[in-house]
């Protein structure tokens, strides 16, 4: 069983990425607060994790929950999201920094849809609920966002 590293190690290794994910999900203005909430929640729960497994995925999962809280608090979500995954998402394997920087340049709806889908691993219905739009609109935002990303990254 891997011992839990000092929490500062998680910050050193993952803070920049978590910030990028949050900028993608809630925009630059909301990202700072969501970042604070993410790391405070992580710090609170950290000792109870017991072992150090996929800490990066764990942090990104918390970040996406905080992004959803952010969207809810702004009254854009009439429907509560019931089935947010509690376990860590599998490690996506992106050349992350670059991808998330490109995500951050997307228009807000597309940005949020892409982030919730890929960092948060949410299905279309929950993205729609988090953004307060119809599943079709969420699907469209995601589609448009990805199209634009592909062009950007090509």
């Amino acid at each position, binding site marked *: 069983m891997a011992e839990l590293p000092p929490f500062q190690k998680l910050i050193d290794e993952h803070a920049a990425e978590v910030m990028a994910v949050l900028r993608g999900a809630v925009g630059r203005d909301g990202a700072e607060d969501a970042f604070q909430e993410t*790391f405070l929640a992580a710090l609170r729960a950290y000792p109870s994790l017991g072992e150090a497994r996929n800490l990066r995925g764990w942090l990104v999962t918390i970040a996406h929950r905080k992004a959803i809280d952010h969207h809810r608090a702004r009254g854009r979500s009439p429907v509560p999201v019931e089935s947010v995954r509690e376990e860590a998402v599998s490690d996506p394997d992106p050349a992350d920094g670059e991808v998330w920087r490109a995500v951050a340049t997307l228009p807000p709806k597309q940005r949020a849809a892409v982030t919730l889908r890929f960092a948060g691993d949410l299905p279309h219905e929950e993205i729609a609920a988090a953004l307060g739009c119809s599943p079709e609109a969420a699907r469209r935002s995601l589609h448009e966002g990805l199209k634009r990303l592909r062009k950007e990254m090509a």
Partner: protein
Amino acid sequence: MNAVMDRSLERLRERAAAEGLLDIAYGTADSPFGPLLLARTPAGLVRVALPSEDVDATLFDLAERISPRILEAPDRFDEERRELEDYFEGRRREFDLPIDWQLSHGFMLRAREGIAAIPYGETRTYSDLARGAGNERAVRAAGSACSRNPIPLVVPCHRVVRSDGGLGLYAGGVEMKKRLLELEGRRG
């Protein structure tokens, strides 16, 4: 990291401390022997790592023995830095810092409290220390109380020497021990 991130992390440290989530803060202080690592709990100074000690190993050890809620907080050690600097320049004879003894228990705790009571510029022997801690035959354990002292300098284990007049060992190296005793103008 950039300035925006620095500010975010500073805010995070403040909020973590305010919410009781900062179990251990750490930072560094300069010394004539190289950088010292300082670690504090809300109760006080819990660990000083000498330049010879590995920083990562020290932090992982604290994570295991006390709590993994450990954050770097360079702005929280001004008083420690000031007192250490004064000490190294010969202007200070006693530290006025709260100490968290939680890494010491039983005989080790009694022995280390004994070390903390040795006046500036004086020395005691390992046997003195063992006797003072309630077991005069535990000379070897008194040696461990020194060599594995979690708070060297502030708990001045460099003031404990051998009964035959030899300096004995020091976690930071015998040369450092010798220079510290010279600095204090050791009166035996």
